[in-house]
Each structure stands twice: as structure tokens, then as C-alpha cells.
């Protein structure tokens, strides 16, 4: 029998004077929200260096998308940010529509706006639940899941799925909303603001919550921008950048809403921003339900779900099917325009961008996904440096990262 080597199980020990430890947190740590590993160099409990390691969930979506049609690649986006999958679907469709020059009917735009905002609510609820749990507030966790359940039921009513929706389509949406969905969503947005207040009474002025969040993980606006941070994290630092206002898509230019801004750039400011965003989402959904126009839900030029690469053969005038006079007019002509485009949308986590290159075929030549979580995790190294381990947990929660989106 061989003597077991102690090497693998070696516990790092302090080396004399400077008392430095190294600690590998994750990838199976519950507070890292997925398979994120953080390598820490510690001096006591103070983080001297923080190196996040990602890639455990890398599935090669960018490579896969090059080998699928645009309609098929839609389902990949469900698996990016699986907490707010609908917003990813909408972002993808908006980008492909702009690339291929496809128009969307108004009714579909409104429905997609409603769906995307519901997705923002369900993502923010899960963020609040887990963030509060990490910091030590158990009750909020249960309350948030109570409301999130209603939202998931609504998604089920809308499209039959609770997690991976693939509900939008290039050029519209898959099916129309039912009257039951509209009624129940109306009831939900009536009660939901009071529920937000309920969460706030639990933690907003809670002394422990304030001690754990105020002044922790501070980022100035310029710093956050240079690090590529977007979404509520950037707005918590006071930078007014919301793609729903800057480059409106779908029905966001038809509705009235505000972009909540913070000023301190700490964990508490980001928390306040997201809480206010939930109120604004309710406002957007209410307006969309009131204004929901009648009409078709899919545009006339929307591509078929089985995206053919070639145009169907057409007969020239005067020829007939049997007489041998069939002339294929547009046999080798590209179906789609060639070029490249970058389109970004505001998903719950931040700016989700798609960079597409089309070479005229039914598949993207290249699809790059700019994912907010990837940038937020890279910023963690800067945010966490010099803080305590306990604050690292608060920071991970407050940056709101999802590893499926980061690793793609």
C-alpha cells in the first residue's frame, strides 16, 4: 500500500510574520450564487487580493450559435441568465430583427415589453431574496419567493414554461396573451407595490442591514464605468445609463417611467436602485396593459421557424409547372442582408449586447454576447480588495451575477 500523499489535502497555514492565508471560496459555496470560485489572499479577515475564477459553466454558446439558424439559437439565450430568461429572449430577438431588417407589429412589442418587465421583477425578487439571505435576513427570502411564485405561474399561463421560455419569436411573439393572463397580471400589479413596502419594512431601516450594506463596496461613477459595470450597479453610482431610455426598443418609447439613480455607489445604494426599479416596472406593465393595442402578434416578414437558407423557386411569368418553362428566378440570392450590428438591451443584470455578423445565410457568421455578469465578476476583484470576507458576500450579492450568463 502506498503512503497517501498529504499534498492534495494540505491546509494553507500562516507563514510567520505577515499571517497571510490563501483561501479558495467556491465553486460549491452557496453564497457565490452558482459555480463561481474566488481565490482570496487574506491577512486575518481582510482581503489583500481577490481573484475570481469563472468558466465552470462554459458551454460555448458563441460557437454553437454559428452552427444553428437564427430561430434555433434563440433557445441558447434562455440558458444565459436563467433567472430572467425572458429578458434575454427579448434582447436576442430585438437584435436579430434589427440585423435582418424585420418589422414587429405594435401588439407584439407591447406584449414583449410586459414579459421583459415581468422578467425584471422575477429576477430582482430572486436577487433580493438571496442577497438578504446572504446578509442574514431569512424572512425576506421567504416573502420574495411567495411573490415570485405568482410571477412564475403567470409565465406559465403566458407560454407554458416557468424557467426557459423561448416565448418571443423573431418578428413577434409565439402566441397571444389570454384574457385570464391579463386579469391575473392586473391583480398582481395591484397588490405588488404593497408587498414591496412589506420587504422594505423588514430591512430598509434595519440596523443590521444598514451596518452590512452602507459604505460597503463603494464605487465611484467613473470607476464603475471604466470597469464596464452596467445596469442598477452603475446607476447606484449615479451614472444615468439605462438602455430603455438611451436606445429604446419595443414599446419603451411609448410608456412613461423614471430611471432611479443612487449617489453613494455602495451596496445600499444598489439595493435602493433595484427596489425603485421594481416600482417602475409595475408602472410600465400597468401602462402597457392599459394601452395594449389590438392586431397581429407576428409581422408579415417574420421568418419561418424552420429558416430555409434559400428562397423557394419562383416561376417566371408565362411559364407553367409542367411545361418545362420553370425558371428559378432567385435561386442563389441571399435571403438576408450581409453586415454586422451591435444591439444591446437592458436586462435585469445590466447591458446585454449581441454583436452579430451576417453573411447573408440563415446562420450568424459570428455571434458575440456581451454579458453584464462577466463584467461584474471581473470588477469583483477591485470592489472586494481591502474589505472583509463577510463584505465579499454582500458584494457578490449586490453585483447580482449569474454564472450561466457570465460563462456562456
Amino acid at each position, binding site marked *: *500500500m*502506498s*503512503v*497517501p*500523499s498529504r499534498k*492534495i*489535502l494540505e*491546509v494553507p497555514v500562516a507563514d510567520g510574520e505577515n499571517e497571510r492565508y490563501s483561501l479558495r471560496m467556491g465553486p460549491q459555496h452557496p453564497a457565490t450564487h452558482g459555480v463561481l470560485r474566488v481565490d482570496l489572499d487574506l491577512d486575518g479577515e481582510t482581503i489583500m487580493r481577490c481573484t475570481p475564477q*469563472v*468558466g465552470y459553466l*462554459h458551454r*460555448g454558446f*458563441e*460557437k*454553437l450559435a454559428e*452552427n444553428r439558424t437564427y430561430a434555433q439559437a434563440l433557445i441558447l439565450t434562455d440558458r444565459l441568465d436563467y433567472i430572467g430568461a425572458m429578458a434575454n429572449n427579448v434582447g436576442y430577438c430585438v437584435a436579430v430583427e*434589427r*440585423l435582418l*431588417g424585420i418589422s414587429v407589429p405594435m401588439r407584439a412589442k407591447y406584449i414583449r415589453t410586459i414579459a421583459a418587465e415581468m422578467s425584471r421583477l422575477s429576477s430582482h425578487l430572486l436577487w433580493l431574496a438571496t442577497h438578504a439571505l446572504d446578509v442574514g435576513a431569512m424572512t425576506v427570502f421567504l416573502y420574495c419567493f411567495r411573490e415570485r411564485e405568482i410571477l412564475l405561474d403567470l409565465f406559465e399561463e403566458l407560454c407554458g414554461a416557468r424557467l426557459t421560455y423561448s416565448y418571443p419569436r423573431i418578428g413577434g411573439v409565439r402566441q397571444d396573451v389570454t384574457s385570464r393572463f391579463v386579469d391575473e397580471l392586473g391583480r398582481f400589479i395591484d397588490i405588488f407595490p404593497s408587498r414591496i413596502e412589506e420587504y422594505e419594512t423588514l430591512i430598509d431601516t434595519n440596523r443590521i442591514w444598514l451596518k452590512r450594506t452602507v459604505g460597503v463596496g463603494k464605487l465611484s461613477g467613473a470607476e464603475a*464605468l*471604466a*470597469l*464596464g*459595470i452596467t445596469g442598477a450597479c452603475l446607476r447606484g453610482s449615479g*451614472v*444615468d*445609463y439605462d438602455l430603455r431610455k*438611451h436606445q429604446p426598443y419595443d414599446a419603451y418609447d411609448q410608456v412613461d417611467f423614471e430611471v432611479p439613480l443612487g449617489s453613494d455607489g455602495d451596496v445600499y445604494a444598489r439595493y435602493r436602485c433595484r427596489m425603485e426599479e421594481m416600482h417602475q416596472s409595475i408602472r410600465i406593465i400597468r401602462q402597457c396593459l392599459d394601452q395594449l393595442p389590438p392586431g397581429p402578434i407576428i409581422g408579415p416578414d417574420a421568418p419561418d421557424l424552420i429558416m430555409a437558407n434559400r428562397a423557394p423557386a419562383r416561376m417566371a411569368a408565362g411559364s407553367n409547372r409542367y411545361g418545362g418553362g420553370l425558371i428559378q428566378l432567385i435561386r442563389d440570392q441571399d435571403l438576408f*442582408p*450581409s*453586415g*454586422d*450590428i*451591435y444591439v*444591446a438591451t437592458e436586462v435585469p443584470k445590466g*447591458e446585454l*449586447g449581441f*454583436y452579430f*455578423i451576417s*453573411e*447573408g445565410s440563415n446562420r450568424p*457568421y*459570428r455571434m*458575440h454576447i*456581451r454579458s453584464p455578469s*462577466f*463584467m461584474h*465578476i*471581473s*470588477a469583483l476583484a*477591485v470592489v472586494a480588495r481591502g474589505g472583509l470576507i463577510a463584505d465579499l458576500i454582500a458584494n457578490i450579492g449586490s453585483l447580482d451575477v449569474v454564472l450561466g450568463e457570465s*460563462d*456562456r
Partner: protein
Amino acid sequence: MESMAIADGLQARFPEEILQCFSFQGQVGVGIRPDRVVEILGWLRDDQAMRMDHLRSLCGVDNARRKNGGLGRFEVVYNLYSIALRHEIRIRAQLTEEDPSIDSVVSLWSGADWMERETYDLMGIRFNGHPNLRRVLLPDDWEGHPLRKEYPLRGRGEWVGITDLQAKLEELDAHGFKADDPGPEAGDAGDAATGKRKGDC
């Protein structure tokens, strides 16, 4: 500012660096030589009429199978946006097959760090002056760069590190997963599986 006007501004400021101008669905891309990329992007960021303070995305493109001639084998694409002035531009730096490398822009945007690491990881483009150019999504000992067009969709066999990992797991198994266990012979720790392994030894 209109995107076309930004492209004209670039053309006027760096006439010998600009190769081509692309316009598609209302967006404008500018093809450039890679040598002075830091200077060009720095000017776009700092010039008072441009103020492109937000690097939205940075990615690599393999042009091996593109129909459009006149492009380099590789491209590094920078999408820039100005939050204050609300205008955008795309910069496309053309690289050759022999030397797929370009200067790093981490000095301009610290967030470019991981974007460039990802581009290196998946596309194999080197960024000169990058503080820590390691793979980020794939394991450090991965062979090849999957987003290159010649890389097969199903990959090239198993990851080389998997044998090391399996050996490590087996060794851990022999320990019965206990850090302070003096060895497999001491104590009665371990389940049926561990017992079997004892017999094997």
C-alpha cells in the same frame, strides 16, 4: 453626433490609419490598422466632441470564411458608446494571420482586462502589454482556440487535464475524504466504497 460624422472625424485625425468605412442598418464601423489602436481609442474617449466613455464590447472575429475580400484574417471589434452625448461607433482593427496581436487597451478601460482575456482564450489573439493574459473561460492547459473557424464544433477529443483530475479524485477517494485521517488503515471511517478500495490496495 451622427455616426458618419464620427467616422469623418477619425478620417481627418488619423488619415493613414483608417482603411475602410462600413455602414449597415444605421450603424457605422471603421476599419483601422492595428498599430496605433490605443492612440485612436484614447482620442475617441478623451476628445470633447466624442467622449466615448463606455467600452460596450470587445471581441475577436475570424474572417477566414467571409465573402467580403480585403479584410485581415482576424479582427478585433470595439463597440464604443458615449453616455453623455448618446452616440456610438464601431472600430474594427484588422490583423494578419501571421501575427494576430494588438496593443492592449486596459490602460484606457480597466474593464477591458477580462474582455481581452476572453478574446485571447477563444480566438487566440494576443494583446501586447496586457497585465495578465491568461485564459479565462477554458482551463489553462486547453489546446487551441475554439472560436477559430478551423476548430471543429465537436472539439478535438478530451481535455488533457481530465486524466490528472481523475487521478486526483481517486487519490481523494482513497483518503475517504477526511483531511485529518492519518491513513486508510486507521479508524473505521469510510463507507462501503472506501472499504472496497482498501481491499484493492
